[in-house]
């Protein structure tokens, strides 16, 4: 690497001007027009904000910063890492939106002279729309009352009387004890005007109201900002849905600018330029490898270049890039965990793995039997795995993620110690020993099926006023037989009508009907129900019950009990 620089390469290479933005001609044009609309006179334009939309690494933030630089505007940024609840947005972005500002290089910008200050809200789609103080309140310690606060600070009442200069000329009388003080706010008491009491009050309020770091109410605050700002605002999002469905102003009151994933040539060109400019000296092959790897995400490409530039000679860049690949990584990690034969600290466990303990568990579960030397060890190992699972469950139910470290330490070193109590196992590193978890494979292949089931259940739940959790137990067992029963010939038509009416009422899709029939979606019986559903106009009536005199004939070859 060239001279050690404090900033990551991707930051240092940010384009300084809109004309340096790679591969987004349409977006650049729109953004420039947005910028110019703010340069006309001192009055803000009708559309006061731009919404930049696109997948990561396509230049949204870079373009916003470049625009500001081109027009000589100041910039106030709010990133996802800052607290962005309603108050924070009102205080930072909201304030900057109605005032002139200073720049960090020591200039005062006057909008009177057309000097604007651009407000950039990065990843605005991650803001939550909850209004302040709504939803689950974190359990917090009760703040001290003013009296309690003073007791801790002064301990003796004479200390307080002295500090507040009580009893001196012009001041109120001293307090006999702490109980003479109000528990809460002092209101208009004469002593509350004393400067010392004021200072104590301020401290107390600070202690009683810890800052709120959540995103609560952030979205509402941004909507207000977009409507009322007197300075240009740019929002960047990966997905505009959360905003546009949150408030109409994001549909009609902003200039929407789309950023597309970059084409390979654009990424290649940009990486070549950076490689030259930074003197990294990468060959075309390496750059091609990176280009193929990042799929249109230029920032990822620059990060890859930076990672590769630190490599010792002789290391194949392909293996380094592949390291990002979660799965191939988990094969090795699972082997490492199971053969450790000692406890691994959480940091050691996670080394080189980008997976949560919840992702790790199926891998270990799948592969423990393959590593177990005997049934006793296997049994002990499964015990430990169960314990790890217990912590995972607790962690997600209680939302106490610190419990994850227990889970991950037990499921790795703990399980390994159960298998190999004597220390590190000398099991050779046979890659094919570790297998992909069947549970995950099953989940993957049944994904489509589960989606159908889910949508069907949600329709049933809505109609029956039940929670979706209870529908599978209470309603599905009643509905499914109505579709799977093989009726007697004379009931056939009535049943078909009923099924069609139900399908129409619930607006069932072919897939959902097929699920109920336990058939493929293109099966004739599915098509028949769907077709009939378009014609039926009669109200939904249950099919006639089979008459008790003529019980349905049992399938052929089945004997009757009585």
């Amino acid at each position, binding site marked *: 690497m060239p001279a050690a620089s404090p900033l990551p390469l991707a930051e240092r290479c940010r384009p300084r001007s809109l004309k340096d933005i790679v591969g987004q001609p349409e977006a650049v044009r729109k953004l420039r027009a947005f910028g110019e609309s703010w340069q006309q006179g001192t009055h803000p334009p009708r559309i006061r904000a731009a919404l930049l939309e696109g997948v990561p690494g396509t230049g949204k933030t870079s373009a916003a910063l470049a625009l500001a630089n081109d027009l000589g505007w100041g910039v106030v940024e709010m990133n996802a890492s800052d607290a962005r609840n309603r108050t924070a947005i009102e205080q930072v972005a909201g304030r900057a939106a109605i*005032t002139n500002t200073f720049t*960090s290089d020591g200039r005062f910008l006057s909008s009177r002279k057309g000097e604007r200050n651009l407000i950039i809200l990065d990843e605005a789609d991650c803001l939550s729309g909850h209004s302040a103080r709504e939803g689950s309140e974190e359990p917090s310690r009760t703040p001290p009352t003013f009296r309690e606060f003073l007791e801790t600070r002064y301990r003796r009442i004479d200390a307080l009387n002295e500090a507040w200069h009580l009893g001196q000329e012009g001041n109120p009388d001293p307090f006999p004890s702490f109980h003479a003080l109000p528990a809460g706010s002092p209101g208009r008491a004469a002593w509350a005007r004393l400067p010392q009491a004021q200072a104590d009050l301020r401290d107390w309020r600070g202690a009683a109201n810890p800052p709120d770091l959540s995103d609560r109410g952030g979205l509402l605050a941004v909507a207000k900002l977009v409507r009322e700002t007197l300075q240009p605002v740019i929002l960047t999002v990966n997905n505009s849905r959360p905003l546009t469905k949150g408030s109409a102003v994001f549909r009609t009151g902003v200039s929407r600018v789309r950023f597309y994933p970059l084409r390979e040539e654009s990424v290649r060109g940009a990486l070549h330029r950076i490689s030259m400019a930074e003197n990294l000296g990468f060959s075309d092959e390496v750059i091609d490898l990176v280009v193929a790897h990042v799929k249109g995400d230029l920032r990822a490409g620059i990060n890859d270049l930076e990672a590769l530039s630190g490599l010792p000679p002789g290391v194949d860049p392909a293996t380094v890039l592949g390291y990002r690949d979660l799965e191939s990584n988990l094969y090795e990690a699972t082997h490492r965990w199971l053969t450790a034969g000692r406890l691994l600290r959480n940091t050691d466990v996670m080394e080189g793995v980008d997976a949560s303990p919840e992702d790790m568990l199926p891998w270990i579960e799948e592969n423990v039997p393959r590593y177990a030397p005997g049934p006793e060890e296997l049994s002990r190992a499964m015990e430990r795995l169960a314990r790890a699972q217990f912590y995972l469950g607790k962690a997600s139910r209680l939302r106490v993620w610190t419990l994850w470290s227990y889970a991950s330490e037990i499921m790795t070193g703990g399980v390994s110690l159960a298998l190999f109590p004597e220390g590190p196992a000398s099991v050779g590193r046979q890659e094919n020993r570790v297998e992909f978890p069947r549970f995950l494979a099953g989940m993957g292949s049944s994904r489509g099926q589960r989606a159908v089931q889910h949508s069907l259940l949600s329709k049933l739940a809505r109609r029956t006023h039940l929670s979706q959790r209870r529908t599978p137990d209470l309603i599905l067992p009643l509905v499914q037989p109505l579709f799977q029963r093989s009726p007697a010939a004379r009931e056939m038509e009535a049943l078909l009508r009923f099924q069609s009416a139900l399908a129409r009422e619930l607006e069932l899709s072919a897939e959902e009907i097929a699920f109920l029939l336990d058939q493929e979606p293109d099966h004739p019986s599915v098509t028949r129900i769907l077709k009939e559903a378009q014609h039926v106009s009669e109200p939904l009536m249950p099919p006639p019950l089979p008459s008790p005199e003529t019980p349905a004939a049992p399938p052929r070859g089945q004997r009757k009990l009585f």
Partner: protein
Amino acid sequence: MFKARVKMEVLRELVDVVSTLVTETKLQVSVDGIEVKAVDPSHVAMLVLNLKKTGFEEFTGDSTEIGIDVEKIKDVLRLSKPGDLLNLAYDGGKGKLEVSVGKIVRHMGVVDPAGITDPKVPNVNPPGKVVLKTDELRQGIRGSESISDHVTLTLDPEFFSMHSEGENDRLDLKIPKSELTLLEAKETVKSMYPLDFFSSMVKSISSAEEVTIFVGNEYPLKLEFSFAGGRGDARFLLAPRVEED
């Protein structure tokens, strides 16, 4: 290296003033004392604050930067009472800032100063200057707060005035030149400022009896006051509101 002993009231005022703008800040320590420069996240207000070594009870220091979490200092201040002395010690590098009061010692993790913006303070010289009593200013601000979220300051060769306007209500504070300590204005100048910063800044002043205000036409406000018995001074800059025509 930095080692000092300071009165609780002095540190509290310093921290109160700083915390109106930022939650984290950089203490710039030199042989002569400390300096704090801060800009609020919306770049609307700036602050430069100096405390000379004589403002401390004891002080030894050489050139070093300490990134502090203002809230943590406040936590320690809450454990002390006026009249107490606090000891501060920092040996540099990644070490902890040691703050002790009475029998309590707190070892405080410091913030990497590289992550804190080091604002360059613009050279702002508004034409009008007024020196007035902190109490009178505070009174005017208290009145304006219930009416609006901004306030217009006017300097005239004959008077200083403060005006705020809400939907239905108006409030004016007008002090004639004869009742001001000092008034220098060749012509009438006025600007509108956001009240929240102005108000929290003025309210955080606990020891200065007088403050100096500089005002221009749609120009930043400069507010100067001293603390720690004149051994510390603060300069506060506030950008004016965007005024629509």
